[in-house]
């Protein structure tokens, strides 16, 4: 219906590859490919028309290629029923995909040094980001982590496209034993990073934000909240986010995110309604907020 918003398409699967503990599916989706900006995601219907699993599964777009008018690729590890079903897809099967969804990563105007931090499947959206940053002349360094060697996404690609790439695993089976944040400070210093981008589980994003803060650099985080709709209508994916105006709102991570500035996210209050959030029980700023809210750009 519009030139920049998401589209819903039944796309043929081009191929399904298995890489270590994860899968990569490429689908032909020109409409999504042409609209895509890095950081955005797609949502995929799983299980077929008579499935008992109704909800779409959100996946970051890992790669966009011009083949066949435009293909997109996403990576995933099998977690539950939806990803198990996806892992069984074969070329030529049709997938019902909606995208691109969400706010993309904001890109720096100048050719600055960027460190990209990913945990597990959270590494996926950092690859198209790295490409975009490189195209703008930015230096890109990677810090990627996972539970074990086979859970570190696309290590080889990371090495290829980045200036440096550091890996961590919880069990020490690959790279440094430990967490991404154990090495992040060092990387920021050595690579003179000007800005950080991070994607992964909430505790990781919180820790990355803390490290970035210590080093005085801005950080963009991409959150992985559970999402029922992915398009902003169900209000199930909310997290407390502080706006430009200093007011905390329960923001939808699907359309107001998934990318937020790290310091905007009230990590300590995720899973709660902070008492000072707009419209929280007992919240007192009724008059003020109404005008604030209406003035806000929500397009």
């Amino acid at each position, binding site marked *: *219906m519009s030139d920049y918003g998401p589209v*819903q398409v039944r796309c043929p699967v081009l191929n399904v590859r298995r890489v270590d503990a994860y899968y990569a599916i490429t689908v032909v989706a020109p409409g999504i490919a042409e609209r895509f900006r890095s950081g955005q995601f797609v949502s995929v219907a799983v299980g077929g028309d008579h499935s008992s699993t*109704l909800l779409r599964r959100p996946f970051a777009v890992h790669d966009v290629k011009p083949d066949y008018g435009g293909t997109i690729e996403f990576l995933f590890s099998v977690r539950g029923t939806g990803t198990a079903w996806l892992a069984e897809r074969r070329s030529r099967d049709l997938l019902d995909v909606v995208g691109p969804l969400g706010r993309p990563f904001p890109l720096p105007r100048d050719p600055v040094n960027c460190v990209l931090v990913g945990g597990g499947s959270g590494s996926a959206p950092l690859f198209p980001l790295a490409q975009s940053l490189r195209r703008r002349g930015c230096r890109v360094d990677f810090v990627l982590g996972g539970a074990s060697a086979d859970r570190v996404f696309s290590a080889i690609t990371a090495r290829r496209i980045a200036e440096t790439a550091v890996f961590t695993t919880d069990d020490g089976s690959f790279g440094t034993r430990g967490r991404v944040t154990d090495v992040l400070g060092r990387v920021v210093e050595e690579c003179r990073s000007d800005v950080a981008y991070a994607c992964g589980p909430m505790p990781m994003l919180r820790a990355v934000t803390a490290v970035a803060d210590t080093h005085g650099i801005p950080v963009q985080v991409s959150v992985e909240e559970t999402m*029922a709709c992915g398009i902003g209508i*169900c*209000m*199930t994916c*909310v997290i407390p986010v502080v706006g430009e105006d200093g007011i905390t709102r*329960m923001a939808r991570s699907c359309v107001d995110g998934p990318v937020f500035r790290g310091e905007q996210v009230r990590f300590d209050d995720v899973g709660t309604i902070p008492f000072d959030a707009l419209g929280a029980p007992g919240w007192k700023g*009724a008059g003020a907020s109404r005008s604030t809210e209406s003035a806000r750009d929500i397009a």
Partner: protein
Amino acid sequence: MNTDLRVRLGGLELPNPVVTAAGCAGSGRELAQFFDIAEIGAVTTKSVMLEPHAGRPAPRMAETPSGMLSTTGMQGPGVDVFLQRDLPWLLSRGGRAIVSVAGSGTAEFGELARRISAEPGVDAIEVNLSCPDPADPAGRRFADDVSRAAAVVSTVRSHARSDLSVLAKLAADVPDVVALATACAEARADGLSMINAVRGMAVDPRTLRPAVAGGMGGLSGPAIRPLAVGCVFRVHEALPEVPIIGMGGVRTGADVVEFMAAGASAVAVGTINFSDPSACVRVLREFTEALEARGVSRARDLVGAAHRPGVGV
């Protein structure tokens, strides 16, 4: 064939019977990325409250077999923002608006009706009786007490502009849905919407904790369709003159046929919007095709067909 899809809900005529369910379509803006919002019968907006509400803590949803459990807790910006921002947008796109209201108290419902009646262009007000009644010592919902529910409906009716239809949105998990429906009709509701999500719970077998914050959530989706169809059938049987918007798990055009045959004059698509953002127009298309296939020339002839053995349509 040129099927006549128009349906009537009391004084309100809709071009076709497919509308959105409250809280499952925002105010239409997001779905408009996928189809022309003016094409469907109407958009029922997310229940609007007088003040902004932050809603309930996360996790707010869990997937269940053929359904989902959710607790959004009426998050929204309040009626002022709604009237300044969301409603004008919907009307500007040619959408028909059924505005759902949720008051934290009977008086607030009246105030909401008054405010909404001041805006031109709204077609109907839907009274969400599933919100907690602050005056109830046990924290029950308005729908749990037939007389409190009726009081809310008549308050809304008396504050609403007389040309606006007032629809009472019923809960299914009440002692007696027919009694509730009857009380609302007697309180001068022009129509009834049913059913709201049904209270349920899921425990995450990994964490062993309730899957949604606060424990209980609302179960919606195809799983509850038989409960919804049962309510529509029984209420239509008892009150054949009162128009009904049926909802609960509508997924396909055949489901619209099912609800209308049970007694609904219009049918709302809820949870399935989340899994298929084009669902409303797809369902409308499938429904139209189903009518053509069986040679039904007027959609409204279907209403209540399941109550007329052997007559058919």
